[in-house]
């Protein structure tokens, strides 16, 4: 095997060097992008861009790594087979006294070695550079590099998929590339929003193992399905099924989209219209009804059309938007904990503020603001509720995770613990308490309000009992009870009206509570004024929501064509709350899918199996497969099986397949070729 590995390394040396150069260029570009930005910031030529603070998480390195790993992996795998594409050269390779498994491993060890050196080495150097203090003025955790690691791993999946594409001998030429579908799905695993690292790793490794098994099987049969070990057949079928499923899904999606475009009434009807409450700048509430391929309509709470006095007709969208209150802000409740627990990619730190010489970030691991000197890019200290400390953890005092985007356009000005709101004075590395809760009160959420660009006007603080509006110096503008109460009502919005000092608070029910009540829970709106508190309050009736209708949208219809195995996989993801996504109808889609598979794809597969003259055992195995995998399974079956020739049986006159020793109908042997009287046969003796 050593000779084989050496041969492969030598044969693909040019590709390895090319890969190394390309990945090094990517790394150098990322390095230059970051250092260039920091130099400009230092010289005051531009302001700091939060999303470029940590280069190992920057879009440039992630997008570049994704593309390059995919392309390099696939090309490398394919080239390792393509180099021996000539039938005789392949024969020269495989006709040597080593097993096909050894040849497979020889190629794979060399290929992965090249991949690791060409792609991995520059990336590791880049990560090491970013991790060494003094290079990057931002928090660094090894877990931050997982995104790059997953992309690197996805490249290995593409390596095997490329190899499979090169190796596969297929009846349908295009089906050779179907293995790439599984690799693509492995790449997509990276961006499943709720998955944790171990889940991603396990699924990726399983996918890679399936592809590797398919390639290994292909080496045993020179790329054919027939003649492979059972494990190889299973790997190949699984790989092809995923690819076929992906192709079928896109074809179905395109077909539905075209139909929907040209025949909108085919898929949309009146019952697919839904509505939402909107508020105008003067505090009046209207209902907007939209959907169903019709322009939106606006009616008041009594159902009367909102007439535009200028035109005398119902107000149009443009005019309504001009009158609508656009200063509405949501106050996230309990989001900090949830977002930390379930987010992919996880947020490790949030850019907070930049002072002239320091970058301040909120680091989730320590729950504190950490500062980095812009010039030296070194850590200078951290700020917690108890003030500044020279180390990362201080006295162990922590802030709650800010409820904001990872790289907010306007960073929040306040920080909070469970019982207090703080304002950081980072120029002086100091902290000031703005607000402390009353006894037994816990803060559920707090949001800074910026009514005019970056001017901090208010902070809304929500506790379990009250909602308060604070000024930047901590003065309470108004305080109103949290009613209806948490947790059934957990969606709170505040709208600032045109009249000075006037605002409206929206208390909307949670999805789960509303669903339990059959979407009939009202939304409470309370109008408030400075110094007066609550002016009035009203309950808005439940709305006609899009999710309450079934079926709706192209995706939902395509979903019914998805194989039952897909639904099983979806429901196996225990953290996914299916009931929340497809309320009340979650069981219908798998049922339709199963029925379609049982009534269409299984009989079709059975009929094809008879045409292939499969054994009963094989027929039953494929029937179960078609039941689970639906149309992708049937496509995979067609693309892996070789269509056997048939000829008439001289005994029973029925057509019989030629790859059996006996007629499958009557059991007769094949007749020897007819003699023509010119045959010359003599017994041969061994030569002594």
């Amino acid at each position: 095997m050593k000779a084989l590995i050496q041969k492969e390394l030598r044969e693909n040396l040019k590709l390895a060097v090319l890969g190394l150069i390309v990945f090094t260029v990517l790394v150098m570009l990322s390095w230059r992008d970051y250092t260039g930005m920091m130099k400009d910031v230092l010289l005051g030529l531009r302001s700091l861009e939060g999303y470029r603070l940590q280069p190992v998480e920057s879009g440039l390195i992630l997008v570049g790594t994704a593309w390059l790993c995919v392309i390099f992996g696939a090309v490398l795998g394919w080239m390792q087979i393509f180099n021996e594409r000539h039938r005789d050269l392949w024969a020269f390779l495989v006709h040597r006294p080593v097993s096909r498994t050894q040849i497979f491993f020889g190629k794979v060890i060399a290929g992965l070695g090249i991949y690791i050196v060409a792609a991995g080495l520059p990336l590791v150097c880049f990560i090491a550079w970013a991790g060494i203090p003094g290079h990057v003025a931002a928090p660094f955790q090894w877990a931050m590099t997982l995104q790059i690691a997953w992309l690197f791993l996805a490249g290995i999946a593409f390596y095997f998929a490329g190899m499979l594409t090169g190796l596969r001998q297929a009846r349908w030429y295009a089906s050779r590339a179907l293995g790439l579908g599984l690799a693509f799905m492995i790449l997509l695993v990276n961006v499943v929003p709720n998955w944790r690292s171990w889940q991603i790793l396990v699924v990726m490794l399983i996918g890679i193992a399936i592809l590797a098994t398919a390639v290994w099987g292909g080496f045993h049969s020179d790329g054919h399905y027939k003649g492979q070990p059972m494990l190889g057949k299973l790997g190949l079928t699984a790989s092809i099924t995923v690819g076929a499923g992906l192709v079928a899904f896109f074809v179905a999606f395109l077909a539905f989209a075209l139909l929907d475009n040209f025949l909108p009434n085919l898929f949309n009807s009146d019952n697919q219209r839904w509505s939402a409450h909107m508020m105008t700048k003067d505090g009046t509430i209207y209902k907007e009804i939209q959907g169903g391929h019709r322009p939106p309509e606006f009616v008041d709470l009594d159902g009367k059309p909102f007439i535009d006095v200028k035109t005398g007709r119902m107000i149009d969208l443009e005019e309504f938007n001009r009158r609508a209150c656009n200063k509405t802000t949501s106050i996230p409740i309990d989001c900090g904990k949830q977002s930390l627990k379930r987010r992919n990619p996880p947020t490790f730190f949030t850019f907070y503020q930049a002072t002239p010489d320091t970058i301040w970030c909120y680091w989730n691991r320590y729950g504190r603001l950490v500062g980095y000197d812009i010039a030296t890019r070194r850590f200078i200290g951290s700020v917690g509720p108890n003030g500044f400390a020279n180390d990362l953890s201080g006295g162990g005092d922590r802030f709650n995770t800010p409820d904001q985007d990872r790289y907010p356009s306007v960073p929040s000005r306040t920080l909070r613990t469970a019982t207090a709101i703080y304002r950081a004075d980072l120029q002086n590395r100091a902290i000031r308490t703005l607000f402390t809760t009353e006894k037994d009160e816990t803060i559920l959420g707090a949001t800074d309000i910026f009514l005019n660009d970056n001017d901090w006007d208010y902070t809304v603080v929500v506790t379990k009992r009250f909602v308060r509006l604070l000024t930047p110096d901590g003065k309470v503008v108004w305080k109103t009870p949290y009613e209806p109460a948490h947790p059934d009502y957990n969606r709170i919005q505040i709208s600032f009206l045109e009249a000075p000092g006037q605002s409206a608070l929206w208390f909307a029910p949670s999805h789960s509570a509303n669903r339990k009540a059959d979407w009939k829970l009202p939304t409470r709106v309370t109008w408030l004024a400075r110094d007066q508190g609550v002016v009035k309050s009203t309950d808005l009736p439940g709305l006609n929501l899009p999710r309450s209708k079934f079926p709706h949208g192209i995706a939902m219809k395509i979903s019914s064509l998805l194989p039952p195995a897909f639904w099983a996989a979806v429901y196996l993801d225990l953290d996914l709350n299916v009931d929340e996504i497809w309320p009340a109808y979650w069981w219908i889609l798998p049922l339709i899918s199963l029925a379609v598979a049982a009534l269409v794809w299984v009989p079709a597969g059975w009929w094809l199996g008879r045409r292939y003259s499969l054994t009963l055992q094989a027929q039953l195995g494929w029937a179960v497969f078609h039941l689970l995998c639906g149309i992708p399974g049937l496509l995979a079956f067609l693309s892996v099986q070789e269509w056997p020739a048939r000829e008439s049986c001289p005994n029973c006159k029925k057509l019989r397949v030629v790859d059996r020793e006996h007629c499958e109908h009557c059991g007769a042997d094949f007749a020897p070729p007819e003699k023509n009287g010119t045959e010359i046969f003599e017994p041969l003796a061994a030569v002594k």
Partner: protein
Amino acid sequence: MNEQPVIQTRSLTKYFGAKPVVHDLNLEVPRGSVFAFLGRNGSGKTTTIRMLLGLLEPTRGEGSILGYDIRALPPEARARIGYLTEEHQLYGWMSVKECGGFQSQFYPRWNEKIFRGVIGHFSLKPTARVKDLSRGERAGLCLGLTLAPEPELLILDDPAMGLDPVARRSLVESMIYLTRRSDRTIFFSSHQLADVERVADYIAVLDHSVLRACCPVEAFRSSVKEVRLRFSGAPPALPKIPGLLQAFRAERELRVTCVHYSRATEQVLQALAPLQMEMAPISLEDAFISYLGERGEKSFILSETEVQP
């Protein structure tokens, strides 16, 4: 000596699509023989060889090589079989020496002397790149790589294909000189009948994917006869002759080539009342061409009036 055939097939069949390319092949290759596998282009020789070496899955039937099932040849069997491919493909970026080095690492019985001997015979420079070698030189290198492991069975797929006469002669000489060992078997396909005549003990002939002959070379040659008949006028219409391969009519002559010439055949021909009837000597090449050429009667008589006295 083990009398078990080195290669044995039973009803070996291969279809490409709906077309049978090897049909019900029953073949036995005796140990120690030089066995020529003949047939026209597309008759199924290469396909058979590829099936024998486990490089192609048979559609049906079975076979064994050195006692191993051809569907599952283990590495130890491959170590005992030398295989020279049709087009002498090798890694173009390797040098002659590197090719030897690469190959030698897989074969514990690698004989460097043989390798050097063969590449010396073909005047190959060890440092020359494979991609720069001529077709004949590449064939020589392939032969060296195939012979140096000292295989028990040598399978050569049309080793002289595309070679000029000098290179072909070199190749055959190497084969004869270096492979004549009592326990070594050579199974080769070829279109070069002069080479076959020089080296082969046995031949098997595939005709349109069907095995039509399998016998010693001499038996084949003696089975195919050419008879010349002279007539006073145009030769008469030919009656049905058993084993007829070809009949050639020209002027006042009729040449009949057939297999299994017998007393009955002679009586049928005598009944045509020829002025003269004689048996013509026939070479293996002529016999082979007659055997594999188009069957039936050919005429070079332009018109009946031209042949009148």
